[in-house]
C-alpha cells in the first residue's frame, strides 16, 4: 500500500512482501549461477573497452571536447593499439625477460616480507616487554611514507633486483606484521585456557592455538600484501632500472607512448590478479573450518 513519507512528502512504496522476495532471489541466483555471473562480468568488461574505443577512435564520433580528432587517441590510447602491443610483446617474446624480472621481484618481496612479518608479529605479540619497547618505533616506521625510501635503496643496493625486493619487503612487512600481531592478540582466552588445561606446552600453544588462530588474519593481509609487493617492484623499476615492466612503462612515458604504458599496466594487473587468485586458493584450503555465510536453497 502506498503511503506518504513524512520527511520528503513523496509517495513511497514500502519494499516488503513480493518486492523484497524478488530482490533477494535475484541476488541469490546471480551468486549461485557462476555461468551467468561470468557472462555479466564479460559484458561489463566488453562495455568498458567498447566505450574506450568509441571515445578515442578518430572520426568515429564528432569531436566534442578536443579540436583535433586524433587528440583523444594521444591522451587516452586506443584499445586496439594496446592489444596489438600486448600481442607483439608475447608473440615476439620481448616481454618475457621484463615480466620475469618483475614477477621475481614481486614474489621475493612478498615471500620475505610475509615471513618477516609473521616472525616479528608472533614475537612481539607473545612478548609484552619487547612489544612495549618496540611500539613507538614500529608506529613511526609504519607512519613514514616509505615510497621515499625507494631512491635510497637504489643507492644502497644498486639498480638490480635487490633494491626493488628490499623496497617491496618494507611495504609488505608492516601489513602482515600488524595483522599477525592483532590475530595473536585476538585468540580467545577460553580456547587458550582450555588448551593449557589439556596439557599443551608453550611450544604446542604456539603451534596448535596461536598460529591457526592468526591464520585468518594473515590471509586477509596477504591479499593487500600481493598488491603492495607489485607496487614495490614496479615503483622501484620506475625509479631506476634496466629491466622489468616498470622500466618498459617508464621508457614509453618518456616518448608519450600512452598505448604502451596502458599495455604495461594491463599486463601487470592480470598478473596481480593471478597471484591474488593463488592466495585465495591456498586460503580456502587452509581455512575450511571457517563458518561460511549460510545461504538457503531456492526450491
Amino acid at each position, binding site marked *: 500500500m502506498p503511503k506518504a513519507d513524512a520527511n520528503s512528502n513523496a509517495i513511497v512504496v514500502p519494499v516488503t512482501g513480493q518486492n523484497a522476495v524478488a530482490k533477494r532471489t535475484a541476488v541469490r541466483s546471480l551468486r549461485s549461477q557462476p555461468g551467468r555471473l561470468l557472462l555479466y562480468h564479460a559484458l561489463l568488461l566488453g562495455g568498458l573497452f567498447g566505450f574506450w574505443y568509441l571515445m578515442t577512435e578518430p572520426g568515429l564520433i564528432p569531436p566534442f571536447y578536443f579540436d583535433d580528432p586524433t587528440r583523444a587517441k594521444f591522451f587516452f590510447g586506443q584499445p586496439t593499439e594496446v592489444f596489438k602491443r600486448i600481442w607483439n610483446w608475447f608473440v615476439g617474446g620481448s616481454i618475457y625477460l621484463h615480466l620475469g624480472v618483475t614477477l621475481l621481484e614481486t614474489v621475493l618481496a612478498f615471500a620475505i616480507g610475509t615471513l618477516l612479518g609473521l616472525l616479528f608479529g608472533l614475537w612481539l605479540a607473545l612478548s609484552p616487554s619487547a612489544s612495549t619497547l618496540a611500539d613507538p618505533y614500529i608506529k613511526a616506521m609504519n607512519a613514514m611514507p616509505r615510497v621515499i625510501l625507494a631512491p635510497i635503496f637504489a643507492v644502497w643496493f644498486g639498480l638490480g633486483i635487490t633494491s626493488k625486493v628490499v623496497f617491496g619487503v618494507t611495504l609488505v612487512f608492516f601489513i602482515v606484521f600488524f595483522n599477525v600481531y592483532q590475530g595473536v592478540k585476538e585468540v*580467545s582466552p*577460553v*580456547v587458550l*585456557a*582450555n*588448551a*593449557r*588445561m*589439556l*596439557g*599443551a*606446552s608453550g611450544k*604446542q600453544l604456539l603451534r*596448535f*592455538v596461536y598460529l*591457526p*588462530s592468526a*591464520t585468518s588474519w594473515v590471509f586477509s593481509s596477504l591479499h593487500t600484501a600481493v598488491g603492495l609487493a607489485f607496487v614495490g617492484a614496479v615503483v622501484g623499476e620506475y625509479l631506476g632500472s634496466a629491466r622489468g615492466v616498470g622500466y618498459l612503462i617508464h621508457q614509453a612515458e618518456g616518448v608519450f607512448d600512452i598505448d604502451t604504458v596502458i599495455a604495461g599496466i594491463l599486463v601487470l594487473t592480470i598478473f596481480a590478479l593471478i597471484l591474488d587468485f593463488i592466495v585465495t586458493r591456498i586460503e580456502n584450503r587452509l*581455512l*575450511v*573450518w*571457517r*563458518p561460511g555465510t549460510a545461504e538457503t536453497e531456492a526450491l
Partner: protein
Amino acid sequence: MSVAVAPASAPALLLERITCAFSSRERAGESYTAVRNTTLSIAPGEFVSVVGPTGCGKSTLLNVAAGLLQPSSGAVQVLGAPLVGINRHSGYMFQAESLMPWRNALDNVLAGLEFAGVERDESEHRAGEWLSRVGLSGFEKRYPHELSGGMRKRVALAQMLILDPQIMLMDEPFSALDIQTRQLMENELLELWSANRKSVLFITHDLEEAIALSDRVVVLSAGPGTHPIGEYLIDLPRPRDVNEIRLTPRFVELHTQIWHAMKDEVLKGYAQSRRQ
C-alpha cells in the same frame, strides 16, 4: 617404579583459606575482593556443586582450583600435594565455547592426547570411541561451527574425559543450553561419572541442577568477599534421573531448605548488580 600415593584420608582437592583480590580497573589503588577466606574440600569420587548468586566469584574459585589463577592468599592441595602451576590432575569444562574452531570434532577430542605425545593412530582410535560414547559417532569430521550447541558441549566433555582426569572442574557447562538438551546432558554426565567415579567440582547458579547432580551442595554468599555460608548433604539415592528426581518429596524438601538459606544472598547480589 614408585608411585606417590596420597593418604586415604587426603581430599582429592582442598582449597584452604583462599582469598582473591583484584586491583580495580576504574579506580586505581582500590582493590576488589572477589573471594574471601574460602575453604572447600572435595573427597575422592565426590560430586560437589557450588551454587551462589550471579557474579559472586564462583568461576574465580574454579580457576584457582585449575591453577589458571594464583590466589592472593591461601593454599591449594591436589591429591595431598600442593598445587604448582596448572593442575595436571584435573579436567576443565568451560561455560563459554572452548573448542578449537579450526579442528574438527575428532581432532578436538584427541587434542589432549596429541599434546601428551600419544601416537596418531591410537589417539584417533580412542577419540573415536569417546565421540561415540557421548553420542556423536558419525560427526568426527564436523567442525565446531557445524555442530549444535549441545553437540559442542558433548565434544568438550569427551575432550576432557579422554585424559581420564582425577578431578573434573565444571563451570556452568550447560548454562547456555536449552532446558531439554540440558537435562539430557545432565543425565549423560551422571551416567559417565558413575561408570568411573572421579571428584567433581560443579559450579552452577541453578539450585535444581546442583541438587539433582550432587552428593553435596555448597552455598556461597553474594560478592564481594564471597565465602561459603552453608553446606548441604544430598542424600538422594543413585542412580538418579534428573527429570524424575525433581518430583520426589525429599528433593522438594532439600530445595526448600537450601533456597531458604540462599534467598537473602540472591537478593543481595541482585541489589548489587542493579546498583552498578
